[in-house]
């Protein structure tokens, strides 16, 4: 990175550290932080969408649709979520390959599961065996995002379902009195009002989502945990210009600090949003604001 880094063995102290922290592998480590943020940025809205759909179908007057929605919400309870993560990554991958296999190779007569193997035709492989490395990585990341979204979508559905029921009944009755249809009262009355009830649960969920991101490591993504283990391990002079002992504890300390700061900042921000949303609402927090002004 810097011009004085040409021969690290002559350096010491801070200059050595500045060179060490800007090596190529460390840049990959820093990019991995970007990966975590990217995962959060994609997962949060997608999971919210899944959650909204789940809650909507759980409220549906059509019984089978309501069962489906309720089953989706209930399925994440009682089972460790990490089991879901490990399960969905393989299950989704096999599901996609199975579907492609059915479409692309209709004249394949052998069974797909042969003992301990899962065999689909070459054309159905995802990504294709000949695909470049970045496609494999992107596909892996895509699977991870989808897995996170499914699991967190169920959590969000639970929160939103509760929030929809928390909207005062009188509001909906008024809507009916005005002659609104079910659909109209849902979109015009229920949905705008439910957010203030959903926000405490959703902000809790956001914190949980942040704290779940290191599980990316279990899904086979080269994330910050992966790099912290790689970079922190003992390095001998034979393989690197920057030999050092076992520094993994320091790398994980850095991750710990990163997450603590991240959750702390989120907490402050979400508090502020809650303040803003409560303004003028018929809730205890809104009432308190009104009193403070008066």
């Amino acid at each position: 990175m810097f011009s004085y880094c040409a021969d690290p063995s002559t350096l010491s102290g801070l200059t050595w550290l500045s060179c060490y922290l800007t090596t190529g592998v460390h840049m990959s480590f820093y990019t991995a932080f970007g990966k975590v943020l990217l995962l959060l940025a994609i997962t949060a809205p997608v999971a919210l969408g899944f959650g909204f759909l789940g809650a909507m179908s759980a409220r549906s007057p059509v019984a089978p649709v309501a069962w489906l929605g309720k089953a989706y919400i209930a399925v994440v309870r009682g089972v460790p979520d990490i089991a879901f993560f490990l399960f969905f990554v393989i299950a989704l991958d096999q599901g996609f390959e199975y579907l492609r296999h059915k479409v692309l190779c209709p004249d394949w007569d052998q069974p797909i599961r042969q003992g301990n193997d899962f065999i689909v035709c070459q054309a159905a492989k995802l990504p294709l065996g000949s695909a470049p490395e970045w496609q494999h990585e992107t596909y892996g990341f895509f699977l991870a995002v989808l897995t996170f979204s499914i699991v967190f979508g169920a959590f969000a559905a639970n929160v939103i379902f509760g929030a929809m029921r928390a909207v005062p009944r009188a509001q909906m009755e008024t809507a009916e009195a005005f002659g609104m249809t079910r659909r109209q009262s849902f979109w015009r009355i229920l949905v705008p009002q439910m957010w203030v009830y959903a926000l405490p649960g959703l902000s809790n969920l956001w914190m949980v989502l942040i704290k779940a991101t290191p599980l990316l490591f279990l899904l086979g993504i080269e994330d910050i945990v992966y790099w912290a283990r790689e970079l922190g391990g003992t390095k001998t002079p034979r393989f690197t210009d920057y030999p050092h002992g076992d520094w993994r504890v320091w790398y994980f300390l850095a991750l710990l600090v990163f997450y603590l700061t991240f959750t702390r900042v989120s907490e402050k921000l979400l508090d502020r949003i809650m303040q803003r949303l409560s303004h003028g609402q018929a809730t205890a927090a809104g009432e308190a604001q009104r009193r403070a002004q008066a």
Partner: protein
Amino acid sequence: MSCWETLADYGLRSLGIGERLLPRSDFTICQQVVLIGSGLIWNIYFGVLALVSGFFLATAVALGKASQHRWLAKPADWFILLFRGSPLFIQFFFAYFLFLSLKGQYEAFDLFTSAWAGALIVLFLNTAAYSAEIFYGALRSVPKGDIEAADAYGMTGWVRFRRITWPTMLRLAWPAYTNEAIFLFHATTLVFFSGFPARQQKGDALYYASYFADKTFNPFVPYPILAGYFILLTLVIVGIFGLANKRLNRHLPQEARSRMRLRMNLIR
């Protein structure tokens, strides 16, 4: 090989008793059920010990946080912040590597680099922090009248705490604490995926489930088995905590008794 033989061979495999080699091919459902169930012993071990020991620390920390003294309140606050603000997964990794590097200097830390002691400490501190936050919230909502009544009876200090404040705090905190307990048991599945080695393949339920999923390349059998075990475990916890809840609320009129409402607080 019949299922009984499998049970005899692998029933206590997670503790290192029985057949040394794990099955390598021709996996039967029975083998999967037995081995995953055997791994559950570790989940129960971690969960129960961390919960029982964490309960006492949690009470102490909650009292500390509610205390008037800054020197008690601040450290308690930081403790809770540290363990609730960071992922358990990272805490496990950090603790493991910390113990590993301390081992170089002090022989005593050799113990803590193995999962049964090291991971237990992390879980103990973690659940103490989460429970302390629950207890602190309950402590703040102990009805004022209860304390005033205790004062009127001339109760002070330890007696007032032991007979009035503490039981009421527990009663108010119990539903949330039940969730924490369920959740703690789920969190124990992270242990063997986070640095702590499973020596001689002595792992927990998820460890064996993922072993089978890797070997058979079929996630649709081992993970549902694991899910079944955990749903059973959850039901047992709910049952036991429900009994305790009944006892804590036994003095209240029937309709005022708070029904246990379960709300999961998900991943930590």
